């Protein structure tokens, strides 16, 4: 039989029902055995295209495989994961290749079925067999709808047309027929081939058919006229005509006859889009043909198959040709280069047929013992997730996708694989976020990696081709920031490399590893055939091990505490030590997964998105049409890549798994809120809850009373059970309620339940055990009424009522029993009466027995319920309550927050009024042009090596000479700086003071001591280095940036800086607004004290500092006067004066208004109406609030033309400044001195008069400059550039304590002629 199927050369066909006009072309038998091989070798050596490397044998990506009889025909369903396989045995199988199950079989053909085809949109398929029959089936109804008869020999192929209701069939009767499956008629017979027609198929778009025949030709048929003529209506009419020109149909004409094969052609098919045809023949060749409107010609021949080529086709999506052959191989050819790319070989099975999926990237091939569904190339994009970023490869580029913005950028082009082989694209990707480096692994050269560095500014650099560092290795992953591990499979070790691709170390692996994955810094997850281990590369120890079926991918949770190991059909969840938590089995392939924020693992299979809770519970979230690769899960959003490498975002409903998770985590509050708020219902959830031991939760979902009742009983919730039982009201439920209530000890419910079912016996017994005699007597009566003697007797017994019992027995006619009872219990009278009645029949009483009164034992607890059994119910019922209470609390809290906000608003007002100044200050800061300070003068050179002994580096030399110590950073600061603050930070107080003294004339530094100390403390940090050795201190430098070069010293980062001054000023303003004058004063003084130690960076800041000094000065002066005013109680005039002078200070508007009101009020009260009126007017000019304005107007009105009562030393018309020492006005022309630091002025006379008195001054700012210069550069020019307004003065804020050594001060100044010139001005 092998002969037939192998060679198809039917020498004699007695079964043939007709005689061919011409005999089949005789074929010589193919070369057999050795000669075939030698001929073949000959062929290879002559053909330059057949380089051995071109046909690398590789494993194919098999998706599904069946074992069966020989498969002759195959067809994919266009939408569903189905494939039809028609077998040599006559059976047609319908498989689900995704689930791997046989869905159906159709067994009506007699003999082999060679052709089968699904309809594109209808639930139909067609088959054609060696029984000459074409059958059209409905797979839904599992029925053969009809059979098309007409062919006179085996049918080779059948195919539906995509649009028209046509079927084309090819037969050994040398014809091709076109059928209308709606009218079920043959509408055309295409004759012309003069041997078996091995295949015929429609062109996907055009009105063409291609056919191949053993007559060594391929024919292209034009069927356009058929299309025009045919309308269903005239099919019947045409039938006769068709019959008339049988074998001579004019509707389809041969367009081209392609000759070139020198054996019979087995297959020919169209290119889906281009005018190309590919054919395969018994001459072992695959030929490529091209056609245009007028002709068709041979383009090329693909040689390589070693036996008859059985089927060949173009790949729809890639530029390749796929062919298979009886030489047991499938070959992949490059359609443009026309060279072999890859060969897949089977051991024993010859291939017969190929089929391509119409939409997806799937192929199928039928062979001697079954079929395979396979893919040529992996479709999973290589990707790696790092924080908010996804790096992935698409086409020839590494791309970057930001989850939060969904921005997708092309980052680096990657090298195209040099080889043309399939599956050489990137397989995995590993990313180091700190170094921005990417490792891409592929199968190129038997496994290799490439290392790319992603440029920092990703935009616009996408075309720059990096010269990537490469290396060989099956897999490579980053194991630390700047280390990656490469697996060397041959020696079973990992090679750890740095980013320069240099080997750092090699490390043998504990198990035979075929793949490695990241497992936390410095650790690797090694995968072997049957297990995985986590291996510490440094300690070289195994941290964890797990027996597991082959793992394909691993997914770590973001906290690296949990790991999901994805296999082909299983997911194993473990912790970081690989301690197994749970395993999930899937029937279909697991594709990808990611951890959500709650520790739920979300994964995809071929067709579902599913979840897995930490306890192993899993379920479906969503069904998928096409496979996706999850990259990240964030809340209800799933980010994924599809097979085209496109980023997609999918929203999911997470309610179910979040609910289950909460339940699992015992976060009952959450559970309750979900129950309250979401529409989470359904049998599944109820069953789940019940199964998980939460009937009480399930109770909240259920409406059905019976279920409710059951759940209530299960959770012991009697109240709900009673309510349900009342509704259901049937005996069984009452009974069960009674049992449960009894178990709990809730006797009233038990009673109720028994009453409802009129279960008197139980009721009586209940009364007995609860000691309820009263009810028992009632029961006795009821029994009496019901004439239930047994009941009566029982009850009497329970009651211990002997008379009654005797009576009952008597009434029931049991006189002997009644007698015995009476006698036993000593009821003599009655007994005698019975004895009389009984006469001779008196029963004899047993002798020697002592009788006792049978009384029911008294129950311990009479009436009411027994102590109730504790029922696990609290959590959820309380949960609900807590939930409610929680809500209330929340409301309260929000209330409080509102309150807070109101408070904030109050504060805000204060802030707002300060805002204008702040804004001004900020404006200044924004506009600053950032000039670097004078620090680039000279880089520090460490002492050259020359003067250090060379021996130092030598290990174990006898003479070791320690190097001379280097220069501490603080020393360098001192050398490079002439700024006081920096000298202080360096601890060089001496120089700092000299500098301050020279630059600002400051003499007494005592008040600055804490500031000095703070600067010093802040200049160094401390670090514990080697455990027991003393700590290292490190100088804190200013202006650090990533680009700062090491060993070049920047100036110290001072703890005081200009921006803080801003804060301080705000604080001081606030204190002023709050009326806390001493505090405000302290703060303004602090500002003044700190400023000399500040270092600013720009000229603009110098101006701002100057401004700040002025502001502080004004405030300090004013506040001092205010404090003073509060001190003096008795001198009203002086009080008024001080209040008035205060108004002379330059203050913020808000403060000015306060000051004016204050002055106005005091003066008004003091009877100085004119002055008060003046203040009122000033106040009105200062945009007062409503109330303030009103007050001012009142004062104005009341003051009218009234004069001042007292004479004040205050004349607002005459401009003046206030003396900082004596608080009296200094009018123009009066001799005064002003402080060059802050500009405060004071009367010279007072100064001189004070100067002799004061010794031991605390503050002694000896000042000589009119301006305060901070910038180093300016300091250099200081003596020349400065103009001195009033060269000598005193920091006004210290003058009242006065500066002692006036003489020494003068002397100091006289030494400097410039200074002096200014002074006497």
């Amino acid at each position, binding site marked *: 039989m092998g002969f037939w199927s192998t060679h198809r050369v039917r020498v004699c066909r007695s079964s043939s029902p007709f005689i061919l006009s011409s005999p089949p072309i005789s074929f010589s038998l193919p070369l057999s055995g050795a000669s075939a091989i030698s001929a073949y070798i000959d062929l290879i050596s002559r053909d330059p295209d057949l380089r051995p490397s071109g046909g690398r044998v590789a494993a194919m990506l098999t998706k599904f495989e069946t074992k069966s009889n020989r498969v002759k025909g195959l067809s994919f369903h266009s939408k569903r994961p189905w494939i039809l396989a028609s077998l040599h045995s006559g059976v047609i199988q319908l498989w689900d290749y995704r689930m791997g199950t046989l869905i159906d079989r159709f067994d009506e053909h007699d003999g082999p079925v060679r052709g089968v085809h699904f309809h594109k949109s209808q639930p139909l398929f067609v088959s054609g067999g060696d029984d000459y029959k074409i059958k059209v089936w409905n797979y839904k109804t599992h029925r053969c709808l009809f059979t098309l008869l007409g062919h006179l020999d085996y049918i080779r192929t059948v195919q539906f047309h995509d649009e028209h209701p046509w079927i084309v069939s090819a037969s050994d009767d040398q014809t091709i027929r076109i059928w209308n499956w709606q009218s079920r008629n043959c509408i055309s017979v295409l004759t012309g081939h003069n041997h078996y027609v091995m295949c015929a198929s429609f062109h996907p778009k055009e009105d063409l058919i291609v056919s191949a025949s053993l007559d060594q030709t391929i024919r292209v048929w034009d069927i356009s006229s058929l299309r025009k003529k045919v309308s269903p209506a005239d099919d019947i009419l045409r039938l006769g005509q068709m019959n008339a020109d049988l074998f001579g149909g004019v509707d389809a004409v041969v367009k081209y006859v392609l000759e070139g094969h020198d054996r019979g052609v087995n297959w020919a098919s169209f290119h889906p889009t281009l005018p190309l045809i590919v054919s395969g023949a018994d001459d072992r060749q695959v030929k490529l043909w091209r056609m245009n409107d007028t002709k068709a010609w041979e383009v090329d021949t693909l040689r390589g198959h070693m036996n008859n080529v059985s089927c060949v086709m173009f790949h729809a999506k890639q530029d390749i040709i796929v062919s298979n052959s009886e030489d047991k191989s499938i070959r992949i050819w490059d359609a443009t280069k026309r060279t072999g790319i890859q060969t897949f070989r089977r051991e024993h099975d010859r291939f017969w047929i190929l089929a391509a999926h119409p939409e997806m990237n799937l192929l199928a091939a039928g062979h001697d013992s079954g079929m395979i569904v396979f893919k040529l190339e992996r479709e999973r994009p290589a990707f790696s997730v790092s924080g908010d970023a996804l790096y992935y490869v698409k086409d020839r580029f590494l791309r970057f996708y930001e989850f939060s913005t969904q921005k997708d950028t092309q980052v680096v082009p990657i090298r195209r694989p040099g080889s043309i082989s399939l599956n050489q694209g990137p397989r995995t990707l590993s990313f180091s976020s*700190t170094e921005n480096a990417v490792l891409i692994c592929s199968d190129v050269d038997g496994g290799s990696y490439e290392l790319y560095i992603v440029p920092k500014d990703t935009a616009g650099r996408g075309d720059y081709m990096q010269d990537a560092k490469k290396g060989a290795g099956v897999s490579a992953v980053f194991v*630390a*920031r700047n280390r990656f591990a490469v697996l060397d499979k041959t020696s079973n070790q990992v090679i*750890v490399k740095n980013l320069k691709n240099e080997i*750092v*170390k090699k490390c043998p*692996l*504990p198990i035979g590893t075929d793949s490695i994955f990241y497992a*936390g*810094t*410095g650790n690797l997850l090694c995968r072997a055939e049957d297990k995985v281990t986590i*291996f510490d590369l*440094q*300690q*070289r*120890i195994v941290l964890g091990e797990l027996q597991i079926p082959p793992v394909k991918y691993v997914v770590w949770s973001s906290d*690296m505490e949990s790991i999901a190991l994805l296999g082909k059909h299983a997911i194993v969840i473990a912790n970081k030590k690989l301690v197994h938590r749970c395993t999930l089995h899937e029937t279909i392939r697991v594709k990808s997964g990611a951890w959500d924020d709650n520790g739920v693992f979300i994964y995809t299979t071929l067709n579902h998105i599913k979840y897995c809770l930490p306890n192993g519970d899993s379920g479906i979230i969503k069904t998928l049409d096409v496979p996706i690769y999850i990259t990240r899960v964030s809340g209800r959003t799933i980010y994924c890549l599809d097979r085209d490498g496109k980023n997609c975002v999918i929203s999911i409903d997470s309610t179910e798994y979040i609910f289950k998770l909460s339940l699992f985590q015992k976060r009952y509050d959450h559970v309750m809120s979900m129950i309250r708020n979401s529409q989470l219902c359904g049998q599944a959830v109820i069953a789940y809850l019940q199964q998980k031991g939460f009937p009480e939760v399930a109770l909240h979902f259920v409406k059905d009373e019976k279920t409710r009742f059951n759940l209530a009983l299960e959770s012991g919730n009697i109240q709900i059970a009673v309510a349900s039982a009342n509704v259901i009201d049937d005996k069984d439920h009452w009974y069960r309620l009674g049992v449960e209530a009894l178990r709990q000890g809730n006797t009233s419910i038990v009673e109720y339940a028994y009453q409802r079912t009129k279960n008197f016996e139980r009721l009586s017994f209940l009364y007995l055990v609860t000691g309820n005699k009263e009810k028992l007597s009632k029961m006795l009566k009821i029994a009496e009424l019901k004439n239930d003697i047994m009941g009566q007797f029982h009850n009497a017994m329970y009651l211990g009522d002997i008379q009654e019992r005797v009576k009952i027995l008597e009434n029931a006619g049991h006189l002997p029993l009644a007698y015995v009872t009476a006698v036993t219990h000593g009821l003599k009278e009655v007994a005698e009466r019975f004895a009389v009645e009984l006469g001779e029949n008196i029963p004899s009483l047993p002798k020697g027995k002592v009788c006792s009164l049978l009384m029911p034992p008294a129950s311990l607890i009479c009436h009411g319920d027994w102590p109730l059994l504790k029922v696990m119910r609290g959590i959820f019922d309380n949960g609900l309550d807590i939930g409610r209470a929680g809500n209330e609390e929340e409301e309260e809290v929000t209330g409080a927050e509102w309150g807070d906000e109101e408070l904030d608003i109050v504060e805000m007002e204060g802030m707002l009024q300060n805002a204008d100044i702040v804004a001004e200050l900020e404006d200044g800061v924004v506009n600053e042009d950032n000039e670097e300070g004078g620090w680039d003068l000279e880089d520090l050179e*460490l002492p050259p090596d020359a003067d*250090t002994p060379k021996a*130092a*580096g030598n*290990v174990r*030399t006898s003479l*070791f000479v*320690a190097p001379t*110590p*280097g*220069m501490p*950073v603080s020393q360098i600061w001192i050398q490079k700086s002439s700024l006081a603050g920096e000298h202080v930070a360096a*601890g060089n*107080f001496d120089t700092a003071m000299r500098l301050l003294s020279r630059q600002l004339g400051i*003499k007494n*530094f005592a008040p600055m*001591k804490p500031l000095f100390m*703070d600067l*010093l*403390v*802040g200049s*160094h*940090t*401390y*670090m514990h280095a*080697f*455990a027991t*050795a003393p700590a*290292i201190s*490190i100088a804190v*430098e200013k*202006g*650090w940036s*990533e680009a700062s*070069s*090491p*060993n070049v*010293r*920047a100036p110290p*980062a001072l*703890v005081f800086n200009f921006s*803080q001054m801003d804060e*301080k000023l705000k604080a001081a303003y606030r204190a002023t607004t709050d009326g806390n004058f001493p505090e405000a004063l302290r703060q303004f003084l602090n500002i003044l004290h700190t400023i000399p130690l500040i270092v600013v960076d720009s000229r603009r800041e110098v101006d701002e500092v100057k401004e700040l000094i002025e502001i502080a000065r004004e405030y300090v002066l004013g506040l001092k006067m205010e404090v003073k005013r509060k001190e003096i109680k008795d001198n009203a005039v002086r009080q008024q004066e001080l209040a008035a002078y205060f108004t002379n200070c330059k203050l913020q508007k808000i403060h000015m208004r306060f000051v004016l009101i204050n002055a106005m009020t005091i003066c008004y009260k003091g009877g100085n109406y004119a002055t008060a009126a003046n203040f009122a007017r000033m106040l009105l000019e200062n945009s007062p609030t409503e109330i303030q304005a009103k007050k001012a107007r009142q004062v104005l009105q009341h003051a009218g033309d009234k004069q001042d009562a007292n004479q004040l030393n205050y004349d607002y018309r005459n401009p003046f400044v206030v003396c900082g020492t004596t608080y009296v006005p200094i009018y123009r022309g009066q001799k005064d001195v002003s402080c060059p630091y802050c500009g405060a002025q004071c009367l010279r006379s007072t100064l001189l008069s004070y100067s002799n008195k004061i010794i031991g001054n605390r503050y002694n700012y000896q000042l000589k400059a009119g301006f305060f210069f901070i910038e180093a550069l300016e300091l250099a020019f200081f003596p020349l550039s400065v103009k001195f307004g009033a060269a000598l003065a005193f920091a006004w804020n210290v003058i009242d304590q006065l500066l002692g050594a006036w003489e020494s001060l003068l002397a100091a100044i006289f030494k400097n002629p410039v200074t002096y010139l200014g002074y006497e001005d």
Partner: protein
Amino acid sequence: MAATPDLLFGLRNSFYLGAYQAAINSSDIPNLPADDALERDVLVHQSYIALGSYQLVINEIDSSAPTALQAVKLLALYLSENKEAAISSLQEWLSDAAISNNLTLRLIAGTIYMYEQDYNEALKHTNSGGTMELHALNVQIFIKMHRSDYAEKQLKIMQQIDEDHTLTQLANAWLDLAMGGSKVQEAYLIFQDFSEKYQMTGTILNGKAVCCMHMNRFDEAESLLLEALNKDAKDAETLANLAVCSLHLGKPSSRYLNQLKLSHPDHMLVRRLASAEDNFDRAVQSIA
């Protein structure tokens, strides 16, 4: 197959990274060879010293103990205010050719002379190296001497021996910090690596915080330091750094400083402050 696992790895690492209690707790390792057991004891006792339990170390190590342990005891003695006695016996031992080459003794000698700020003498005993610890100590001494060029050479030696060794990484970070500039970032990353790999210790947190401060990221530094303070409220470096950090953030620092003065009167910062105060007064005098 993998090389024999290093049984003391975890213990050593804990010690280097300042997880002293963890080091002590994990010291009970079964089937430890004798050599390793001695090293274990040395590490454990050093951990106790680092925790300030000097007396315990002094009491536990008797005169029959091996030299290495005796050396550790010496350090405990030195730190528990028996400075002179400790130094004199140290000198005595170092002059004894039989034991002067003991690696632990040399390490302790280096440490003690570091405390004495006699770096020349310290280097005399440590410069030839021999263990990673000695090399690390050398790096530290050179940093103290402000000779980062020498420290760098030492580090190179360490890197050649084992680039991924915890001490190599640590020494690298110290040196990076001492060199400043862009190197600070690298130091930060090293500490970051540690924090991902091992449990957070005060040392790691302080290291990170110090890096942050040198990168002028004081807010971040503060939160790290507060975390460190949570772990050990009396850690000298944490308190000192918190004081520094607070000042830079414009917050009061006095509480941390006072705490430091109380619990670590010998700390570098405390001594520095004291001398600065004298300095200030002297400077005021000279100016006046």
